[in-house]
């Protein structure tokens, strides 16, 4: 049996794909990190002597950086090792390498660390953010925007509903932990690694190591799941420094426990949302958001300034205010987890919508549809809304919810939740297509991270433009030395950005073939004949071989280049009081329906049925798109019901393992219906909208609303574990 839906599926199911953790090179050393023994404290001394005394062990600490990195001068924003203050538990304080993994671990344990422990700062509420006071976390980002007459809206309201929601940190839980192999090759610092952003990693490494980008080569491996966690470098700088210090290749892979402790995950947040209602409509909304940013906030206030907009919702509200704070606590740095913080923000916003509708005694779907943005409306920050299929998704979701409600058993509830998102563009992307007599090669610089967007999505774009069959298209990955630039697999952008580059390059090839055949370019399609590719236009047929020059044949084929640099809309900066807010590239809506059963005596929740209506613009490859929606829903069910990082009083993550950090299993995932709404075109090729992140966003809210429908209790905390539901039901 072979699996044909995805070209990589067969090899992956047979274990034939080499992920970073499967890689090794002759003569390599094994690296290990020396973890901080406390979450907050001062380093009194760090003694690498006992590790270095072990035969064959190389150990490096902060004191070695000047010698290893002559290019780094002065203070760097992100030092590889802390010299003074420990910011989070298990923070790498030093690194070792040894000929075996056991020896490396032994050496890491041998390093003597003397610290003066301080109580970790973990709380993000219960104090004034403007004057946090001593022993409170610093504010590292503050954003504030407002529009309309909020005082009038709240002053003349029929009623005001004010709610507070609390959300937990969730981890990406990629199957494969972070892993890399570093090697110094002459002047070049080479790293083979599992990364979502080879070029981004190169840029970050250059700045951390004080090297020019040309001296760093990042070679991506197949990525065993990213979900945002494999963007910024994590293990690479340590491996490169160990390779530099030892003169040998060094492999550094996190254990799964370290993956939880050091991974860049999402962290807790607190949302306060208040709506002023008059005449059955939302007249004003005020949101106040507090985000635990851990030891640092990558991208400064991006997460804060972007995600906070989702708490206001995709709705027409005349007066708004949103204010967000991100605090520096003694947890690992906040990272991007699939649609960073949007499922959490939308959980608050969409639960609030159902609670408002209940208070008004109106149908929650009709209530949403009375407010939802349509094309031409303005966002809360004044951006003009582009083609947006959310109202249509809501209409269809509402109809399905009504049907499901008819056969709802006792203690069963059916509800709807929505979410919206925008396809990121990043700093653009480029590809090179090479059409040979027998195949089309897509030369590009991104590795498949599991979503299918590289191995299948961009291939489908070439198929659509050129009519070529998929088994004649080959994705030809290149490292950062020779690949065309692309800014990474993140932000639901791959099909949209890289796919558009492929589309442009394929169109360029088609134009050229048209010229050579002396036919209109639009009429040319590729077909196969006796194992060779032929260009077909009406009755004209010509072998590609016959259309290429001798030089082209010698170089491998006819080349077409494509570049795509996305453009975003504009926000009305007059509405921004402080911080940075971001415009949307396009508008991707989703409306979900959940049927859940709530055990009225134990609080246990079972999701029985689930459906997603996804505003997709244009579906480029149906199985891949469906897979993305199903996967996003499954992941969202974890955020909704079972997943949370827990932290002990000493600042240590107390459930760093798959036993007590619970991702859903197939046993918890109900049948998922996937429906696409096409025609409201987005930023991608043929009007496709990015589908990587949108499907996770509405899930916690939809499940929470279904619990509300089933039991009448409003859940305000994630995840909605049986015990939390039992407390809300007042069983305890």
């Amino acid at each position, binding site marked *: 049996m072979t699996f044909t839906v995805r070209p990589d599926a067969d090899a992956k199911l047979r274990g034939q794909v080499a992920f970073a953790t499967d890689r090794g090179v002759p003569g390599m050393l094994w690296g290990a990190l020396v973890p901080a023994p406390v979450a907050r404290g001062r380093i009194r001394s760090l003694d690498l002597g006992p590790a270095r005394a072990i035969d064959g062990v190389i150990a490096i600490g902060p004191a070695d950086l000047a010698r290893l990195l002559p290019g780094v001068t002065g203070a760097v924003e992100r030092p590889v090792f802390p010299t003074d203050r420990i910011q989070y538990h298990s923070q790498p304080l030093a690194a070792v390498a040894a000929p075996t993994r056991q020896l490396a671990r032994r050496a890491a344990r041998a390093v003597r660390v003397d610290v003066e422990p301080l109580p970790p700062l973990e709380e993000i509420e219960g104090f004034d953010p403007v004057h946090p006071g001593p022993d409170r976390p610093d504010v590292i980002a503050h954003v504030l925007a407002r529009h309309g007459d909020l005082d009038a809206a709240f002053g003349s309201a029929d009623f005001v509903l004010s709610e507070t929601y609390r959300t937990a940190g969730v981890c990406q839980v990629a199957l494969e932990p972070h892993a890399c192999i570093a090697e110094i090759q002459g002047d070049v610092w080479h790293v083979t690694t599992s990364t979502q952003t080879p070029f981004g990693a190169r840029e970050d490494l250059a700045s951390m190591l004080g090297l020019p980008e040309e001296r760093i080569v990042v070679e991506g491996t197949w990525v065993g799941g990213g979900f945002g966690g494999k963007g910024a470098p994590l293990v690479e700088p340590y491996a490169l420094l160990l390779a530099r210090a030892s003169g040998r290749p060094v492999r550094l892979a996190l254990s799964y426990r370290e993956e939880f402790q050091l991974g860049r995950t999402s962290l807790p947040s607190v949302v306060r949302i208040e709506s002023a209602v008059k005449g059955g409509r939302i007249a004003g909304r005020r949101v106040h958001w507090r985000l635990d940013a851990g030891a640092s906030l990558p991208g400064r206030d991006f997460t804060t300034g972007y995600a906070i907009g989702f708490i206001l919702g995709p709705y027409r509200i005349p007066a708004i205010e949103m204010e967000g704070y991100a605090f520096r606590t003694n947890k690992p740095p906040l990272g991007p987890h699939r649609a960073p913080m949007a499922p959490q923000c939308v959980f608050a916003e969409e639960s609030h919508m159902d609670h408002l509708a209940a208070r008004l005694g109106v149908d929650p779907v009709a209530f949403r549809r009375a407010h939802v943005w349509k094309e031409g409306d303005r966002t809360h920050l004044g951006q003009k809304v582009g083609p947006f299929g959310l109202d249509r998704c809501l209409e269809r979701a509402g109809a399905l919810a009504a049907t499901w409600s008819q056969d709802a058993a006792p203690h069963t509830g059916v509800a709807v939740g929505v979410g919206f998102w925008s396809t990121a563009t990043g700093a653009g992307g480029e590809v090179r297509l090479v059409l040979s007599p027998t195949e089309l090669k897509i030369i590009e610089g991104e590795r498949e991270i599991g979503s299918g967007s590289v191995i299948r999505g961009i291939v489908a774009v070439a198929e659509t433009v050129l009519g070529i069959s998929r088994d004649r298209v080959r994705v030809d990955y290149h490292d950062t030395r020779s690949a065309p630039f692309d800014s990474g697999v993140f932000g639901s952008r791959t099909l949209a950005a890289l796919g558009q580059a492929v589309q442009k390059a394929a169109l360029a090839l088609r134009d050229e073939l048209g010229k050579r055949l002396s036919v209109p370019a639009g009429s040319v399609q590729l077909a196969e004949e006796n194992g060779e590719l032929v260009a077909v236009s009406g009755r004209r047929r010509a072998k590609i071989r016959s259309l290429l020059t001798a030089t082209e044949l010698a170089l491998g084929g006819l080349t077409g280049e494509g570049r795509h640099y996305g453009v975003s809309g504009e926000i009305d900066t007059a509405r921004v009081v402080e911080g940075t807010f971001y415009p949307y590239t396009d508008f991707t809506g989703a409306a979900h329906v959940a049927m859940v059963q709530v055990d009225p005596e134990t609080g246990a929740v079972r999701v029985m049925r689930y459906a997603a209506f996804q505003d997709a613009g244009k579906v480029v490859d149906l199985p891949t798109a469906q897979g993305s929606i199903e996967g996003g829903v499954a992941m969202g069910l974890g955020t909704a019901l079972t997943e949370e990082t827990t932290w002990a009083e000493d600042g240590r993550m107390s459930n760093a393992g798959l036993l007590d950090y619970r991702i859903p*299993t*197939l046993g918890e995932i109900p049948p998922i219906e996937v429906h696409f709404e096409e025609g409201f075109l987005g930023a991608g090729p043929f009007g496709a909208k990015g589908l990587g992140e949108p499907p996770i966003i509405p899930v916690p809210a939809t499940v929470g609303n279904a619990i509300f429908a089933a039991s009448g209790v409003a859940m305000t905390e994630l995840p909605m574990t049986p015990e939390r539901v039992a407390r809300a039901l007042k069983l305890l």
Partner: protein
Amino acid sequence: MPAFSFVQPSTTDEALAALRQGEPGETVIVAGGTDALFELESRRIPPQRVISLRHLPWRTLSWAGESLRIGSTLPLRTLESDPDLRRRIPGLWQAVRAVGSVALRHRATLGGNLGRSSPASDLVPILLALDGEVDIVGIQGERSLPVDQFVRASRTTALGPGELIRSIAIPEARPSAFLWQRVRPANDISQVGVAVAYSPTRKEWRIAVGGVVPRPVLLPQAERLLSGPSPDAAELRAAAQEASMRVPFSTDRRASEAYRRQLVAILLQRAVRAAGSRPSPSGAP
């Protein structure tokens, strides 16, 4: 994982001979290995030896009239697939199926679960409720102990050095049930597990609860509040109340004490009702 020697005896005599060698602290005994693997990985001081019981002729299952004997190294998946188990001892069937995943149950064993003696074990409560007996073979000879005396505390049993669990005997088929509550239903450690069984010969109920530190417990006081095979609602409530107050629950990372008390009261009533409503093992109404 550090290096160790691996011994795989294929007869009881070979197994006992292997136990005579080396210091007990340096040896880890493995049946399916699904739980021991964690310990081997995380141990700071690695074991010198691992003795695997997988090749011993103990992967057996035999019914004798109303009683059942289960070889200690029989994979749980084989046990749950026995055509009679579900009908004759439904509580044991439910408990076995509550353990881990299908893949895990292809390796995990009843003997291993008992030997590891976790407070959260899904199997110990039902073995208690069924008055299971542990058949032990050792260098000093053979002996048999009720499960209630065998299990002592978390990771602590009555098994001495030089002893192995050979089989577990269930004296009679009983109407029974095992119910649990978890954060993640399909595969998790139970917050509370409640096993109940009605002995048709002794005309009395057995109730056992897991998710209790240091070990799962029998609740004789609650048992006595249930009169016949189908207790009425008032009796059920009284037994639930008694159990809820009596069990020495505590708060840990999986559940609070208060939630466990709520759960045991609810699950106990449901389990007794489920067990009572089933046809008796002989098939008579």
